[in-house]
């Protein structure tokens, strides 16, 4: 292999990282050479994010070493959770990470540089560099962050770490990113690409590393893996092919009719289409219409499962237990006081049912990995009595095995008569639904049911006809 002849951009030797008793990373050796795209996979909590943080220097290794033969210059990270300054403009966000832009007249070059980078990675992006970031959609923010990662910034990007870069991008934009990554590597850059979407991993990586419980369990060229082999190496047996049909309860009466949407009792309704075409906004309006009536009295009708965890999901200072039980505190209270016994029983029950990986439910929520935090949010919603469950792209950054678990739970709960409203950017998830509304430019462009729900039909409805041809 030619990799051996070149000096690697970064090399880890027996690198380990412990957080107290928790061994997040347990002795990992690997190196990334120029021109290489390393696909990093593993289920939630396998140590991917810890590995990334060692490479980008967020914290030092507890043991072993991380070396950069040519220095850390040009090593960039695009983080999983969005990390721009929302109050600054796109160009200002670039300038923060650009040491050479100072003195008078730094705005022009900053604007030009971010535009050039956006144009290069995402042609026809339509983002104005003077817009404040909080005015952008979550997909656009992700695009800006990726573009900042690849921008020269007074040097050259040599290694770009992409941690779940496509989780909030729709398929067309994700494809633009993948082709840029390929071009970048062909020109001698190195990329560490982390994704739960195995298709993308196979598409871009030249080499795949599988992490499991803080250890490298496989490190081979991508060509030597097949999809099944990769899933097996990760340690989860994911069901492939079409889902086995569970017996579905007969759909009940219509429980929601608004915004041109309709949902029945026991139905799983999907909201699909390209990211940023009004699905998330429609979902938020639907949810608020269900819950914001202050005269409604006790008992909630709808609950919300957030996809943007830091923004609308977790209560960061609270324990796992508290985060889970907050939705039912009112219901389970005894004469206005929290019934701690019932709270704990409920949490232990859901921990088992949904498989949250923690030794102690009183640990802070932030000690969990992203996917496990998401499970807590699911448990919070499902533990309530609400009949309508609104899900805002809840599988963002969740591994394949967890997804299968959640699909099964959603099916089972729907069979009991709960209604799900599910917005997702991934077609695979949308195909789990009984009925799908496809959005385009803020309006519903198609309603699909049963066998009509296929990737082609959804894509067809998502794009204007002239664009599709």
């Amino acid at each position, binding site marked *: 292999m030619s990799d051996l002849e070149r000096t690697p951009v970064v090399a880890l030797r027996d690198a380990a990282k412990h957080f107290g008793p928790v061994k997040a990373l347990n002795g990992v050796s690997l190196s990334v050479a120029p021109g290489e795209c390393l696909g990093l996979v593993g289920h939630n909590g396998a140590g991917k994010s810890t590995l990334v943080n060692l490479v*980008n220097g*967020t914290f030092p290794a507890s043991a072993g070493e991380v070396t950069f033969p040519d220095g850390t210059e040009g090593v960039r*990270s695009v*983080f999983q959770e969005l*990390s*721009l*300054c*929302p*109050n*600054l403009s796109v160009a*200002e*966000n670039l*300038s*923060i*990470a650009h*040491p050479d*832009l*100072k*003195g008078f007249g*730094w*705005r022009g070059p900053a604007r030009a540089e971010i535009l050039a980078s956006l144009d290069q990675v995402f042609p026809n992006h339509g983002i104005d560099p003077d*817009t*404040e970031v909080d*005015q952008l959609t979550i997909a656009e923010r992700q695009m800006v962050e990726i573009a900042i990662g690849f921008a020269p910034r007074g040097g050259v990007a040599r290694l770009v770490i992409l941690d779940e870069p496509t989780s909030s991008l729709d398929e067309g934009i994700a494809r633009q990113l993948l082709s840029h990554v390929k071009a970048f590597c062909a020109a001698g850059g190195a990329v560490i690409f982390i994704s739960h979407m195995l298709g993308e991993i196979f598409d871009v990586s030249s080499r795949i590393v599988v992490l499991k419980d803080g250890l490298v369990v496989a490190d081979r060229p991508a060509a030597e893996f097949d999809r099944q082999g990769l899933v097996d190496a990760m340690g989860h047996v994911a069901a492939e092919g079409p889902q086995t049909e569970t017996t579905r309860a007969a759909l009940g009466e219509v429980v929601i009719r608004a915004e041109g949407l309709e949902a029945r009792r026991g139905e799983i309704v999907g909201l699909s289409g390209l990211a940023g075409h009004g699905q998330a906004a429609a979902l938020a309006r639907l949810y608020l219409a269900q819950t914001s009536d202050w005269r409604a009295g006790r008992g909630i009708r709808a609950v919300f499962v957030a996809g943007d965890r830091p923004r609308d999901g977790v209560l960061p200072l609270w324990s796992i237990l508290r985060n889970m039980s907050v939705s039912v505190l009112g219901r389970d209270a005894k004469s206005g006081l929290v019934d701690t016994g019932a709270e704990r029983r409920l949490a232990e029950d859901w921990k088992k049912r949904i498989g949250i990986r923690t030794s102690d439910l009183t640990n802070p929520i932030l000690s969990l990995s992203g996917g496990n935090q998401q499970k807590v949010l699911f448990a919070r919603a499902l533990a309530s009595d609400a009949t309508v469950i609104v899900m805002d792209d809840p599988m963002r950054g969740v591994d394949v095995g967890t997804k299968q678990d959640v699909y099964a739970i959603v099916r089972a709960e729907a069979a009991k008569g709960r209604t799900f409203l599910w917005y997702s950017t991934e077609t695979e998830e949308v195909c789990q639904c009984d009925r799908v509304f496809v959005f385009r430019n803020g309006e519903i462009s198609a309603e699909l049911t049963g066998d009509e729900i296929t990737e082609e039909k959804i894509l067809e409805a998502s794009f204007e006809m002239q664009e599709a041809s």
Partner: protein
Amino acid sequence: MLARYRILLPVISLALLLCLTFWMQPRAMSYFGLNLLFNLAVPIALATIAQMMIIMVNDIDLSLGAFVSLVACVTATWLNDAPLIGVLILLALIASYAAMGAVIHTLELPAIVVTLGMSFVWGGLALFLLPTPGGASPGWIRALMTVKPPLIPMAVVAAILIAALTHILVIRSKIGTVLRGIGGNTRSIARAGWNVTALKATAYGLSGLFGVLAGMALVGLTTSADANIALRYTLLSIAGVILGGGEFTGGKVSPVGAVIGALTLTLAASFLSFLRLSPDWQIGAQGAILILVLTARLLFSRKGAAT
């Protein structure tokens, strides 16, 4: 989009209040009248900018009023009697503000508690310097504050100058952009390789600088000082920042808006006097004006979010 409209509401509130004042009291519509209406706004505007520097980095300063009072006492005593020592004391005060910012950040203390505690320190020092009202304004400050530029009164010129300079400093310059970034997302600034402790110290140091300027300007107008002279500046400055389109969190501030907010608050007091409202009611009425403007802003931003 919204950032550009954020400045509109303060401008409209000030214009509306100004029109009402002129309508009540046409004689205010003159060089002399305008100067009289606004000259107490100059120290308030400087204090508002000082508060804005702190709010910009997601903190709040409850010691500002006491700090400005202390500066006024130093100005009326040491700076007048022994200018060199006076200047050194003022520089030390700015440095202690910067140190306060660094301590708040490194020890992860809540700014609201630390500044509340410091307000008693500043207040105590001020009483120690001037147990009874007194002292005298240095001649040059007095001259500066009573200068009569042609056509436009001093108060208006000063307000425009303060607004323009701080706009360049906070909005246009690189350091200002990074400081606002701290309010928006501290982690991302730290990840980009900045020393957040130094940046927070800078923001607090700037706040101290503008606090010192506010105290000096105040003595220039009043010609003497008192340990409690500026206690109400703490709340006035917070109100001014918010009135000017700033927000408590997220690094969303507007220096031009803050200056306009300070002018509006000063004008509101005069306007209520013109209405012959008893002073007992004036503070309540000022609060009502504040609530009115904030309600209008909320309605506008709701509308903006809906479209």
